[in-house]
């Protein structure tokens, strides 16, 4: 079963707290992505990972970092979260440039 799983689905944090969003996939895809979605802006790429420990900035990497220690897992970390990082975060995976498979998203509120 081809699946991208995101945890948690909903998260409320206070400004300044650290945030860890986790993503897993069972398709052995080399490439994984973190996007954020804000109203009217579509999806914006935060980071892309081409494989284990091979990560690259997307269009809006400031305030985020990522970790990929296993091919099937890709984490997004917010050190000292800010209120403007309130958003819906989507993880995706793909085989090279092929079809993107998305997780269900994590709705993060930073108060």
């Amino acid at each position: 079963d081809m699946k991208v799983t995101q945890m948690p689905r909903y998260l409320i944090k206070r400004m300044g707290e650290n945030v860890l969003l986790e993503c897993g996939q069972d398709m052995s895809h080399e490439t994984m992505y973190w996007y954020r979605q804000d109203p009217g802006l579509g999806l914006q790429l935060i980071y892309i990972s081409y494989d284990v420990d091979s990560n690259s900035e997307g269009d809006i990497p400031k305030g985020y970092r990522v970790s990929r220690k296993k091919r099937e897992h890709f984490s997004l970390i917010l050190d000292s979260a800010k209120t403007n990082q309130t958003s819906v975060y989507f993880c995706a995976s793909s085989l090279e440039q092929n079809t993107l498979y998305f997780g269900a998203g994590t709705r993060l509120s930073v108060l």
Partner: protein
Amino acid sequence: GDKVKQSPSALSLQEGTNSALRCNFSIAATTVQWFLQNPRGSLINLFYLVPGTKENGRLKSAFDSKESYSTLHIRDAQLEDSGTYFCAAVGAGNYKYVFGAGTRLKVIA
């Protein structure tokens, strides 16, 4: 400016009618994908395209890389087609898909 521009931004359709959504690219796109985000927020794959056309049921999509655009045609619209449609494009040798801002479609009975 926008690398991927979608039009229209919003659309209301009577059930049973047809419509076309469009994406224009200011990047040298080699691959395009179309997604539907349903009212629950899930992103559903519709099409993965290299230059050419694909059809799946009531949906048909075309991608013209020379003219830098892609279209998504919806035939005989149904209530369950409601949601936001996104296109995403990427250039040769690049895996960083760029998304448009979406077209919000509402199908009414």
